[in-house]
């Protein structure tokens, strides 16, 4: 059943995403095309504006992707459409796993489209070797691909945990009999501050155990490896918190559902 | 057919079907429509049809042939008797109503004859 649920979830979210992707790719193509005529001043100005637009859309594309995932979660499970979704002969777990997969898949899609769009706009020969050279200079003690993989993995975990936090807040907020949306927002704030406190706690523990850690970070020629081990601890904690949010979302959807 | 919501629907359907049998709409020995067909025809619950049919079976106007369905009785006497009892019932009601209006039996007879 997961396949079926995922199919319909993806279809629904892609309805929102396709316009975003069209804009991203369109801007990429425009920047590249107008770039051929930048000896004409008016076109150069337009091209400049396009570049600004492309950068802005790029920055917000991940935020938008997250918003679309959350919007779909809310509408599909807790609004009128929920009357259909929750009466399907499908486990709550399947519904939830599908929503998490959708946010992961759309994140990857957006990253790919963004990458392609930026390549269309700005690719020049030698770009990749240049980037690898610059990166290599700033990450002592680590291979470039290792570093990139780590960053991608780290971003994905961070993104998913944020999305799961909002999912959990909605599940809890919408289990209330009234003021569902307000309850969700309050709940999200509580989760957010709880998360901050936990991070602070983790940091404190690390400093207590190894006081030299922070001073190492201040050292100008610190090893990238140390930074990575520091981030790895955070990544594991973030993933654990994500697991907790998943459980909260599941628990409230399974035991405390309260459709309006 | 319009049903009166104050009287059990199956009784009204029973009366309607009994009338159809004694007036020859369904002939002696003829198969009567299935529960589903009757339910569609009269727009009533199949359970109601079932109940009306079992009442008809009770008064022996119809009988069930195990797999083939339900048939109007081949015993014409039963049909005739039922028609008679219906006629008798209507007559009694008519006479009682007329009596309530103050007519005597003799006057009623005269009226009926004059109307013909």
């Amino acid at each position, binding site marked *: 059943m997961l396949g*079926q649920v995922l199919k319909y979830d993806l279809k629904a979210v892609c309805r929102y995403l396709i316009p975003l992707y069209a804009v991203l790719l369109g801007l990429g193509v425009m920047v590249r095309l107008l770039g051929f005529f930048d000896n004409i001043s008016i076109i150069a100005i337009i091209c400049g504006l396009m570049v600004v637009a492309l950068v802005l859309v790029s920055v917000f594309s991940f935020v938008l992707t997250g918003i679309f995932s959350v919007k779909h979660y809310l509408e599909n499970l807790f609004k*009128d459409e929920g*009357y259909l979704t929750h*009466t399907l002969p499908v486990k709550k777990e399947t519904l939830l796993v599908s929503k998490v997969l959708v946010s992961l898949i759309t994140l990857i899609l957006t990253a790919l489209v963004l990458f392609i769009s930026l390549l269309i706009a700005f690719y020049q020969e030698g770009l990749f070797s240049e980037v690898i050279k610059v990166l290599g200079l700033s990450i002592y003690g680590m291979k470039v691909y290792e570093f990139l993989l780590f960053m991608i993995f780290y971003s994905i975990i961070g993104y998913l945990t944020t999305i799961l936090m909002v999912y959990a807040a909605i599940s809890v907020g919408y289990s209330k009999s009234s003021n569902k949306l307000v309850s969700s927002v309050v709940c999200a704030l509580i989760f957010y501050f709880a998360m901050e406190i936990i991070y602070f706690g983790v940091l404190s523990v690390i400093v207590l155990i190894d006081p030299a850690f922070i001073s190492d970070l201040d050292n100008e020629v610190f090893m990238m490896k140390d930074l990575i081990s520091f981030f790895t601890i955070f990544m594991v904690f973030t993933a654990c918190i994500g697991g907790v949010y998943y459980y909260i979302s599941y628990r409230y959807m399974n035991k405390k*559902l*309260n459709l309006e | 057919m319009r049903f009166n919501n104050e009287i059990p629907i199956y009784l009204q359907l029973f009366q309607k079907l009994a009338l159809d049998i004694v007036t020859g709409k369904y002939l002696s020995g003829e198969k009567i429509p299935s529960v589903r067909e009757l*339910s569609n025809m009269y*727009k009533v619950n199949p*359970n109601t049809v079932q109940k009306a049919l079992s009442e008809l079976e009770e008064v022996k106007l119809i009988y069930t042939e195990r797999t083939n369905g339900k048939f109007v009785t081949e015993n014409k006497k039963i049909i005739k008797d039922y028609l008679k009892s219906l006629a008798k019932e209507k007559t009694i009601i008519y006479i009682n109503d007329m009596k309530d209006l103050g007519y005597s039996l003799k006057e009623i007879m005269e009226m009926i004859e004059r109307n013909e």
Partner: protein
Amino acid sequence: MLLECRNVCKNYGKREVLKDVNISLPSGKIVGLLGKNGSGKTTLIKAINGLLSLDKGEILVDGHKIGVDSKKVISYLPERTYLNMHKTVKDIIEYFSDFYEDFDKDKAYKLLSNLKIQAADKLSIMSKGMKEKVQLVLVMSRKAKLYILDEPMGGVDPATRDYILDTILSNFDEGSTILMSTHLISDIERVLDEVIFIDDGKIIKSESADKMRKESGKSIDEVFREEFRC
């Protein structure tokens, strides 16, 4: 028993919406759940469909607790439109046949063509009455054990009401049970086997429709009006 509700209680905050509701329904009946607006009809129906959590009590459908197994055997028509408006008729039929093993696609298309609705028609351009008919077709095209119809005739014109009642009747087979809620009693009472009166979250009466008519000499509608006279 096909449906059993035992000591079902539900509160919205401090308000008690269902107070110790007990119901048991066998197979093969058309049952009317009758009550005024706000009497708890919809809440009870939502609880049976697993859209609400209970505060107390238990609901069993065909012997299963509310979950995947109960949802497999219930075909539910909510009192609101849940159809995603961007979809076409074909999309929604595919959706139903993907998720419900007992969904009869051919039957759905046949019923829809009687209504002159095409597969490519978009739901967004349909009138409210039309959407309700499409939803009813979807619900009645399943071969479920329990059909639950919440206000199937609410807010539609009399001609549509006739269509809806006909569709329900002609697709009812004796192996299943239909539970339908309404406050428009006179329109549907001729098809009911059993009636359940619900008021202020409590079951007031639960008996055979004919028995009620025989004992009172009145229509269900009249009995209802007398019972709940304001």
